[in-house]
């Protein structure tokens, strides 16, 4: 049952990324990616990580992609494709990516058979993650809030319209 669910979700996920690559309209690309990230959240759920699954759906599929869509709305879509010939470049990049894939799977092949021990009860729950975050990772956690604050201020300063350019 879990295997069927895994294959269904991973097909949706890979299909979402393929749709993002193949669609011409950037807005459709972003929407395809929402599908992909949401199914990735479900895959995290399959991996005994319910907290990460929820965070993925709320922050990635929700907040970040909505941010992308907002910016897409401020930029006119459907511009004519640039006239430069890029077919050779496309072929070259796909070849390079195939090489990268071969490398990744070659390095994976040693660990493909490994199974790992079954995880304990309650692994990856909100309580466990919270204890980890607020005991062992308290300083990194607090620094994250500084990073978010800096990003917030930076984004506002950058995107603000200046009166004297």
């Amino acid at each position, binding site marked *: 049952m879990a295997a069927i669910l895994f294959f269904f979700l991973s097909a949706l996920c890979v299909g979402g990324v393929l749709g993002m690559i193949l669609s011409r309209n950037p807005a459709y690309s972003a929407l395809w990616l929402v599908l992909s990230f949401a199914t990735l959240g479900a895959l995290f759920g399959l991996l005994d990580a319910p907290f990460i699954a929820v965070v993925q759906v709320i922050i990635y599929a929700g907040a970040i992609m909505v941010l992308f869509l907002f910016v897409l709305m401020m930029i006119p879509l459907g511009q004519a494709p640039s006239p430069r010939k890029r077919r050779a470049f496309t072929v070259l990049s796909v070849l390079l990516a195939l090489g990268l*894939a071969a490398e990744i799977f070659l390095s994976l092949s040693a660990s493909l058979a490994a199974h790992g021990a079954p995880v304990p009860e309650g692994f990856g729950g909100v309580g466990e993650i919270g204890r980890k975050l607020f005991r062992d990772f308290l300083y990194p956690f607090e620094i994250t809030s500084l990073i978010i604050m800096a990003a917030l201020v930076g984004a506002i300063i950058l995107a603000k319209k200046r009166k004297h350019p």
Partner: protein
Amino acid sequence: MIPTSWFLVLSGLLFVLGVVAFLVKKDLLIMFLAVEVMLNAANLAFVAFARRNGVLEGQVAVFFIITVAAAEAAVGLAIILLVFRRKKTVKADDISGLRG
């Protein structure tokens, strides 16, 4: 229980697709989306290894990656908006001011 290796293969596939999208697409915004795909592939590998080794640190790392990705998206999109205001385009081919 699903073997961890399946998730690793899916993660590698997603990463390669992200690289393809980054190289093939011309739109700055879509290239930025491709970077997000690669980050998510790495996240999947983190969570898969966290389950295989039974340690929670992998999931904590994913939490940090997601927060930093949110910050990065905010700043990056602001920069793309700025580029659009200056150059009136977001095609990577047309932004060649540093080419010389």
